[in-house]
């Protein structure tokens, strides 16, 4: 189960890192033009860039979940996964945001994709956390019975 959740986290990390790059307004050729004629990317672009920073550690958490054999690391990894999931949701909603127009691609595709991916990352990490806690309790019970 933990390996399966690890694979899911890696897939989610890829989605979080790649999808925003193709669904921000800049990828559709839309940018703001300042009074001096310069074009500036809209804020959804900065959200897309920031999500790469969250996707990389999430991918690593997924890989460690697959490869790690030490039981102690799972609860730490899952807590980290939950935090990263929350961060993935926070970038397009609270921290940076996306464009105001609900019919723009960043609002229709990018933001919901990131919220869904963040929610799934939290859920997957929560599953790993519950399993690791139950495993720890099981081991403690065995040790108590043996002692």
């Amino acid at each position, binding site marked *: 189960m933990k390996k399966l959740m690890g694979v899911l986290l890696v897939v989610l990390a890829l989605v979080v890192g790649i999808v925003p790059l193709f669904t921000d307004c800049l990828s559709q050729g839309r940018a703001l033009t300042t009074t001096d004629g310069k074009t500036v990317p809209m804020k959804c672009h900065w959200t897309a860039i920031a999500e790469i920073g969250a996707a990389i550690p999430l991918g690593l958490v997924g890989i460690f979940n697959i490869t790690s054999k030490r039981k102690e690391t799972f609860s730490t990894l899952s807590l980290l996964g939950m935090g990263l999931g929350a961060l993935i949701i926070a970038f397009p909603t609270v921290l940076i945001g996306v464009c105001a*127009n609900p019919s723009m691609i960043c609002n229709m595709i990018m933001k919901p994709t990131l919220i869904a991916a963040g929610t799934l990352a939290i859920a997957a990490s929560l599953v790993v956390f519950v399993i690791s806690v139950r495993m720890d309790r099981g081991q403690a019970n065995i040790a108590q019975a043996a002692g």
Partner: protein
Amino acid sequence: MNLYWLASKNISGNAFRTGVVALCALLVGSFALFTTLLMRGAENSLRLAINRLGADIVVVPEGSEAKIESALLMGVPARFWMSRDILSQIAAFPDVESASPQLYLATLTGASCCSVSDMFIIDYDPQTDFTIQPWLEQNQLDMLRLGEVVGGTYISATDGKQNITVYGYLVTLMANLEPTGTGLDQSMFLTFDTAYDIASKSVQQAERPLEIPTDSISAVMIKAKPGSDPHLLAVEILQTIPGVTPIESSNLFQSYRQQMTGLLKTILFIMSITWVLCVLLLGLVFSMAANERRKELGVLRSLGATRRFVFQSLLTEATLLAFAGGATGLALTVLIIILFRNALVALLGLPFLLPSAGSLLLQVLVGLFLALFSVNLAALLPAMKISRQDPAIAMRE
């Protein structure tokens, strides 16, 4: 050892079987909920739009029936006109209680004023109107004055707290209507006087002036007298006034209703096939599992487990898997529908409004019941067969 312990041990002991059964339950539950939510959401949206318009009959220029539906429902740009004289001809019918003109002006594409890219401008006459006026009175707002507007739910102020620039003219957004999930959500309602004022000043103030054809209207909203037959009135208007088409409110958005019916038929067909295939696959998986566990179940019987216990343990296993798969699928479907509703509306070309929390919960419970029913139905026959088998024969084979 109780039923749940035995069932959960069997579930954790066979990852492949667990995965297949949970996936089938997930598919059945989520597909059922997705279809129901989408169709009911579109139907609610259509009903709310018709209620918002409040008319028994809408009269439009001949050949503009599809245009008005697309404009009101999806906010698709529409320009159609007819002579204002038609209004007085309609008002003269004895069965007409009130007739109010509306003028559909221009859709501003990429306007900075709105939180949507296309904004539909609807002019109305406050003296005769029964679309916006009752809503304003209900919300204790005065009749709109010159320069004041009411917006759909997506219309937001851009200049200051309440102002919006339209064709270089600053209008005041007085209130926002409740969402309908249709093009009305991206419409701005203003009086004829405000529209004429914008048009006259836009020549100097706007990059592109607002053009209003003189003595023209786009549609006439009709409220029939209580006790009269709107259908007969519509037929009378059609026969008496040339060049116009009366649309009864029950026939409004007919092309969208047909599109919805077509989509519903297709989805129901695909869903039926998916359901049958899932039940068959589940039946096969449970048959294989029961066959594989004949000796194990034979041992259980020989240790004193009753037929009923064996039967119940298999059905409990099926129920637990169906619950886990179904609940996951339903949660994912609700998440997807809520997050991607705007993309779905754009993709399917249908209006959509999320149901109330109570209605959503009811639909989720129905979806869960369908998942539980399907998995248990598939597990029923193998469970009956294996529980009836003689333990001595089962262990020897």
